[in-house]
């Protein structure tokens, strides 16, 4: 187990990066707590796998340092860093039995056979493959194979961290839930430092204590699921997290009043915005209420998804989504109100605070 520090890490796949855009990973400077469960969340190509591979040592960063428990490991190999990693597609040694698969990393490290046996048996029970020890790994289902990949990490009980690279991609939906809870339980029980890469927000939010949202090669926000939901630091976080994502409306600011089209929205704070910045108002569909009072909207579509209804509408000529209770009433002449506590103001896509 280890605390991981990333110090001013940047990475470019090309040999000589000229501009900022040549970097697959723009500057990352962050500390990962010992025993924490982190999720790296972001769309494909945002640099999350690059960051993961830099932590595991499969890639050497172009710039910056990595520290494990304060010790510089930037130039150490994966083995020397003592990292375990689970990949997107299950990697198993086909010709070996389940038992030998789990014993493999230990035998490679010349652990005495009695100790190997004890730990492998323990791990097999942990990952719920008790009856399968003597089976050849080839014939197993995808989720069992992925459990073996995980088991090969767990069996080395002294690992610095376990990294997951979209481990549930090839797993059936109902098994995803089972595996995820199992990983979560193992984290609680043994306190491994875990970093979990995914583009699935549900996976990220249910797995992690802290979610790291990445976009275009940089970390845009690190926070608890609640923080990401209530106070997205960047409009991207707003879009990406939540279903449907946050409504982002271009506004003109005048003191504590925001104007969209012809409509005025009163703010309960005075936003601190530099002149000339592109200003936007963000509000989650959950905090827009529909009724007979407020500002007029034109409804285009109502999607009933069972638990609640999603109303797609146009507000001041901007598309907007509203969540309405399953039995909520939608009047003939609908009007909307924004919950002032849930309004965020963005300048050039970044959230702005209150004027001091």
């Amino acid at each position, binding site marked *: 187990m280890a605390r991981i520090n990333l110090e001013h890490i940047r990475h470019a796949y090309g040999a000589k990066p000229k501009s900022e855009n040549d970097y697959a990973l723009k500057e990352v400077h962050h500390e990962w707590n010992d025993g924490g469960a982190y999720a790296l969340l972001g769309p494909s190509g945002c640099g999350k796998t690059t960051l993961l591979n830099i932590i595991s040592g499969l890639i050497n960063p172009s710039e910056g340092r990595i520290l494990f428990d304060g010790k510089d490991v930037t130039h150490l190999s*994966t*083995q020397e860093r003592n990292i375990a*990693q689970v990949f997107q597609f299950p*990697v198993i040694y086909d*010709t070996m039995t389940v038992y030998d698969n789990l014993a*493999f*990393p230990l035998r*490679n490290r010349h652990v005495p056979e009695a100790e190997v046996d004890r730990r492998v048996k323990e791990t097999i029970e942990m990952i719920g493959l008790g009856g399968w020890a003597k089976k050849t790994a080839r014939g197993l289902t995808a989720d069992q194979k992925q459990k073996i990949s995980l088991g090969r990490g767990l069996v080395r009980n002294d690992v610095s961290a376990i990294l997951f690279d979209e481990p549930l991609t090839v797993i059936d939906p109902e098994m995803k839930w089972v595996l995820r809870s199992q990983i979560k339980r193992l984290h609680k029980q043994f306190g491994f430092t875990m970093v979990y890469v995914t583009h699935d927000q549900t996976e990220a939010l249910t797995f992690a204590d802290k979610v790291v949202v990445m976009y275009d090669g940089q970390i845009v926000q690190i926070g608890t699921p609640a923080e990401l939901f209530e106070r997205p630091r960047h409009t991207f976080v707003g879009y990406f997290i939540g279903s449907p994502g946050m409504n982002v409306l271009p506004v003109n600011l005048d003191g504590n009043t925001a104007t969209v089209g012809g409509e005025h929205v009163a703010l309960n704070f005075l936003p601190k915005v530099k002149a000339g910045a592109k200003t936007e108002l963000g509000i989650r569909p959950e905090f827009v209420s529909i009724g007979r009072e407020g500002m007029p909207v034109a409804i285009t579509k109502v999607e009933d998804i069972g638990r609640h209804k999603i109303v797609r509408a146009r507000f001041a000529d901007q598309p907007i989504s509203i969540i309405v209770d399953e039995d909520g009433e939608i009047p003939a002449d609908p009007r909307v109100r924004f919950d002032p506590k849930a309004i965020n103001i963005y300048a050039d896509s970044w959230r702005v605070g209150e004027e001091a």
Partner: protein
Amino acid sequence: MEKTWNNKAWFMVLPVLVLVAFSAVIPLMTVVNYSVQDTFGNNEFFWAGTDWYVQVLTSDRFWDALTRNLIFSAIILAIEIPLGIIIALNMPKKGLGVPVCLVLMALPLLIPWNVVGTIWQVFGRVDIGLLGRTLEGMGINYNYVQNPVAAWVTLIVMDVWHWTSLVVLLCYAGLVSIPDAYYQAAKIDGASRWSVFRYIQLPKMKRVLLIAFLLRFMDSFMIYTEPFVVTGGGPGNSTTFLSIDLVKTAIGQFDLGPAAALSIIYFLIILLLSWIFYTVMTTSDAQG
């Protein structure tokens, strides 16, 4: 599920049956026909039963040629398969080196058999050949026309030069199909270079290796053109393989009966050995 019988279905397979009949069954049956009869010319045939088979199977000439064939195939496989794997493992996986290596590897495969034979025939000649003269100059007694060992070495080196590429290309195809994650996982598991080969690369190459093994076995067991061009089966009978023996019997001596019997036996041996290899290798695959 209940099966429905419909005799019209036979019409559907008829074209294939006709093709196979003309390309394989009829020629083979003609040979079978010759192998059980005797002739003294004038297109008159007499029933000979299994006489020719007995004659072939009890002749030293047959067993000697068969032994040479088996030894030749064994040596070829023992060199080409490991060598092919080693070269494939060391070939570049990306970049400009890939097309260069692939083209270089494919070159020997593009040369016709008899040309390969001629190249080596000339290359190895003691009077004008580059190899022959060089070895002679170094004081090594090398003369494939007179020395059986030199003849064998020449044939083996030639076959290795000609066909190792096939093994290389097949293995390489198997190797590049392995996702990077396997190598990364092996690194993380602390696997040695040998373990990576033994537990990742070899299992992934197993299928293509089986194909390479069978192809090289069948081809080397049926080898005819190159030894015919280089040594003509000599010196003495030292490089007379079954195929060369067969041609000598059929065309040189015009003994159609024994030649036909030898053909059938030859065919059955290849079929049997290929089947054994295939079965052994695929069952070990299923258990492994």
